[in-house]
């Protein structure tokens, strides 16, 4: 039982570290956001393994879910602005806002 | 009787793990986005259902079983919707990706 749990922890932590390094060193914003969502899921599983379901709940809902969705929208907006800086960016911010 | 139930739940859980591994292999090995989508969604939902069926043996009370059943139904509905959305978005690809 203890050895199996130790093996579980080793797999969990190795992958968590690899995910963190991959997310930080990713050059492309949307890939970094995907890796961040995966990192949040993984960290939430670490909290679940530590028998802290409340912290795991908060991490999954806020850290990965809300933050991930917001960062996805932000990365898309940044990519769009970078791609069509002078031609397309007027359609970016809805009806009222002036183009940046 | 008890050992039979244990054996049955272990078999169900192992079958679920097999379907999960099949889904992962499909995600990695298949050549196209749509074939990957097809392999992933179905295999995963079936694997999760088998694992939950195996975990019914360890449930503390009936409410827990109801929660697991609802969770599986939610996963099936949201998985089907999500794969549909991803496929439609990839089919209409409007140059936003590249």
């Amino acid at each position, binding site marked *: *039982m203890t050895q199996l749990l130790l093996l579980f922890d080793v797999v969990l932590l190795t992958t968590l570290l690899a995910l963190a390094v991959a997310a930080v060193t990713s050059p492309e914003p949307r*890939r970094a956001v995907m890796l961040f969502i*995966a990192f949040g899921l993984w960290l939430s599983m670490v909290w679940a393994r530590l028998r802290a*379901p409340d912290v795991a709940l908060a991490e999954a809902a806020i850290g990965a879910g809300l933050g991930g969705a917001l960062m996805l929208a932000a990365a898309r907006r940044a990519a769009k602005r970078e791609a069509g800086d002078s031609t397309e960016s007027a359609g970016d911010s809805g009806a009222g806002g002036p183009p940046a | 009787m008890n050992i039979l139930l244990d054996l049955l739940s272990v078999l169900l859980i192992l079958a679920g793990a097999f379907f999960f591994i099949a889904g992962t292999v499909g995600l990695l090995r298949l050549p196209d986005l749509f074939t990957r989508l097809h392999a*992933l969604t179905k295999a995963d939902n079936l694997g999760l259902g088998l*694992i939950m069926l195996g975990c019914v043996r360890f449930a503390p009370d009936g409410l827990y079983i109801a929660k697991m059943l609802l*969770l599986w139904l939610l996963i099936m509905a*949201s998985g089907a919707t*999500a794969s549909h959305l991803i496929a439609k978005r990839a089919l209409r690809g409007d140059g936003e990706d590249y």
Partner: protein
Amino acid sequence: MHEILIAVAIILLISMSVGLIRIVIGPTPADRMMAAQLLGTSGIGVLALLAPALGVPALMDVALIFALLAAVSVAAFTRRRVGQDRP
């Protein structure tokens, strides 16, 4: 009995780790989103196995949040403004 549950959880965890390769190398963002969905589903499986093995039934609530998270992130990923729907 609980040893078998943890062993299967380790197998699922390794399968999730292998699926992460698709997030890293995936050619399109849709591939990455798909891999994130696989991550959510397998995570629910791991939590469902871990809940009886560790003796914490509340982990099933965390699994519920994982299910919601997969749906929300896919919806945020494929979101379109009104009027941009037609190709």
